[in-house]
Structure formats: C-alpha cells, structure tokens
C-alpha cells in the first residue's frame, strides 16, 4: 500500500514537473486557421513545412531570394472558400523583420492596394501579402471573382491572429 502511495506521489511530482517545463515553453504558433475558423474557408490540405535547404522543392528558383533574406522556415497549406474558390497560404518565417520587409517590397507593383493588417499589407485582385514581425505571409487565389478580394482579406486576418 505504501509502495502504491509512493508511486502515485512520484507520478504526480513527475507530471507537475513536465507540465511546468512545457508550460514555460513559448507556445508554438499555428497561423493556419482550421476549417470554419474564418467564415466560408475550409483548410483543404495538410500543412507542409520546408527548411531553407529544401525550399527549392516547393518554389524552385524563388527559394534563393528567400534564403538571401534569411528565411528560417516556410509552411504552406491549401484552402477553399465556399467549396469553390481555391487558394494557397504561405507563411515564411524569417530571421528578422528586415527579411520579411525586403521580400514584401520586392514584389510590390503599382496596382498594389495598401491594407491594414500586421505591420504592412498589400492586396491585389487575387492575392494578399503582409508582414508581421519576422513573418511574411502570402495568400494567393487561383481564380478571381467579385468575392475574392474580401474573402482573401478575411483569411489574411485569420492567419494574422495565429502569428
């Protein structure tokens, strides 16, 4: 009986220690909204993550500019809006905010519309790009209709909330 008490006490101490350790760790960010978390949007694929050395497998020659800008990791997932409009969300985590800013500004064109999101955001007819801290987020829709810009912006805010 005493042995059982000792075992239970030891287990509780171990459990407490584990919970303290994990509790002290920074919560790992998951910026990808679950299905239904943003109205109309379903997460339609698993999240894939690439280290810098493997980024070419995802974006081929584009990888070089991200590596030069200090990308640490890249995650991506597909989404679907109202079962029809398909989009992809890419989250690039850079070594510092400068890297995210470099990439954001590099791709900017005259028809970009500024939107209020994160530290800086740009919107086009079929895409939203924004940076927040060390993160650069790019959301691209494969088709364009009247709902696309608004739907993309809503999804972008959903992603931002998880960063």
């Amino acid at each position, binding site marked *: 009986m005493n042995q059982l008490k000792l075992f239970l006490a030891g287990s509780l101490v171990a459990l407490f220690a584990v919970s303290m350790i994990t509790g002290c760790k920074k919560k790992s960010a998951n910026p990808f909204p679950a299905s239904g978390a943003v109205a109309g949007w379903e997460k339609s694929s698993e999240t894939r993550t690439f280290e810098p050395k493997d980024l*070419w497998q995802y974006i*081929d*020659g584009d990888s070089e500019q991200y590596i030069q800008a200090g990308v640490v990791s890249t995650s991506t997932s597909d989404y679907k809006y109202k079962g029809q409009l398909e989009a*992809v969300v890419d989250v690039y985590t850079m070594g510092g905010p400068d890297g995210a800013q470099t990439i954001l500004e590099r791709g900017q*064109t005259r028809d970009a519309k500024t939107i209020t999101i994160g530290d800086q955001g740009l919107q086009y007819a*079929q895409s939203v790009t924004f940076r927040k801290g060390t993160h650069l987020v790019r959301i691209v829709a494969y088709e*364009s209709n009247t709902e696309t810009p608004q739907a993309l912006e809503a999804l972008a805010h959903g992603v931002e909330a998880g960063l």
Partner: protein
Amino acid sequence: MRNRREFLKEAATGALILGTQSSLGLTRAADPRTEPRSKVVIARDPSLHGPDGKLDAARVGALLDRAMATYTGHARPIDAWKRIALEAGAKDKVIGLKTNGLGGRGISTHAVLVFAIAERLQQAGVKPGNILVWDRNARDLQACGLTINTDPNQIRCYGSDVSGFEDATETWGSSHVRFSKILTRECAMVINLPILKDHSMSGLTFAMKNMYGVIERPQELHGGGCNPGIADLNAFPVIRQKIKLTIGDAMTSVYEGGPGFRPEHLWQPNALIIGQDRVAIDQIAWGLLDKKRTEMGLKTLEAAGRPPRYIATAAGSTHALGLNDAQRIKLIEV
C-alpha cells in the same frame, strides 16, 4: 563514321535527333555552303481563353493542329504525329510527355494541352499504355490538373517519385546529376512540354530549363543564374537523344515574379511554340518575354540584371546544342 565536328553540327540543328532525312521542321540546306537553320513555329489564337478565363479545349486542339501542320508541312495532323512516332524510332515504344508543374496551380503546363497531344498520338497508332505523362512528382502533375495513373493499359501518369533515380551520377562539364529512370529506362523518346515563365534566377524558364525536372537534385544547378547548369544538363547524351520535340505552352505565362504563380503578373500570350531546337526556342521566348515586360513598364531581363545567359552558353561551341542567332532561326508565326 561521322567525326566529332559533324556530330556537333548535326546535334546543333536537330538532325541527329530525327535523322538526316528528317522533314520535321528542320531546314536542311541543299547547298552545303549555306548554314543550317532551326525552325520555330509560334501559333496563336487570341480567343483561346473563354469569357470565364478558362481555356477552350476545342480551340487548344485546333491550335495544336495548326502549329504542327505548319511545323511539319503535313496538312493532316495525324500524318505529322505518325511521322514523329516513326522517325523518333518510338513505334511500339514508350513516348514520354514531360510537363512542368513546379510553379503550382495556375502556372503549370495545361492538362488540356497534354490531353490533346495524347489523343493525337493515339490517333496516330500509339497505344495508350505507351504514352507516359511525367514530371518530378505527383504534386507537380496534379498542379497541371492531371491524375496519377500507373495502369499499363491506359495512358500512364506519374512522377520520378514513383520510378526513382539512377544510382550512378553522371557528369557533363561542372554538372553532376542522377537521372530519373523514367527518362533513362522507360521512354524511347520524350516530347518536352514546358510552360513559359519569368524566372528570378535564370531570367526565363522554358524549353531548356524544363530538363531540371528530370534529375534528382536540380537545386545544385542554380548557381550563376543557372549558367552553365542549364546548358550542361541539356548536353548530356540521354537528353540530346531522347528529347525530340518541344511543344511549349505559352497559353498562360508570368512575365515577372516567376517562376511561381503570381496572378498580379499573369499574361495570356495564347500561343504554342514548337520546335526541335531548344536553344532557338528559348531565344525566341526571351524576345517575347522582354516585349511584354517593356509593355508593362518593366526593365528587360538584361536591364533587370538577369539575362538568360545560359542560352548563349548552350549555343556556344562547347555545348553546341542549337542556334541562338536570330538570322539563323526560321521563325514562322501563324
């Protein structure tokens, strides 16, 4: 027995690939003093995309037929395709269709073009099981709108992730590569189906760079703006010998921000670009891309600091892969 000089000359003009009696678009000079030329056909249809922005399959088929008829001189498309299968020595052997799906959905070789080619090959007598649509992996193929299928009685579609790569590393120049077994073991000939795109490193990606999808670690050939990587890769004998025709998808393109999908820089040239000389095709494509960039107020690729230098390297005497001299490219636009 041909000497090295004759070999290089024939390879440069495409004669080696299809035989010296080829009538497939190669202008063989009757007068030996006249330099050989490479033929490139650009076929366009401004109504290729419907009002919904989607490609019209019937129009794509008609455009393909017009392009092939112009290129080969055969009025009936079926004769052109028969000639391709026969001259390439691919009768009753596997013909590969190498797509490009790396850019993801929206900027990958269009499935409707693949279907049209596969249909015409079958009309020319090629068995469905002898048509193999392939790329790096399932994801790239699905990005084109294709479905994976390994049934040997049907048109097959799968990537090098299924076939694997050769164990042996081969070397040409400074490039060391391991080839997909689809290229080395399965296909007797391959029709190259790239999609025209701006490329942040090489300047552009089209006929020659699509070969990066036939090796295991293409990222190792990206240094120096992919120069000499692209030229080296295209110089390997297995590529020289098996890639016999390019049908370039320039129906949709991206003129800036490539090679990924950049809807803000999408462009619809509504064209197919056909030829055997991949150097000549890329040289022509460079001009098209620069023209569009200029129209959009962007710098040319040269001014932007990323001219596709690999084209001149490929045309040079060391690689001798084809012609980049505009005077020696017979460009036909229909």
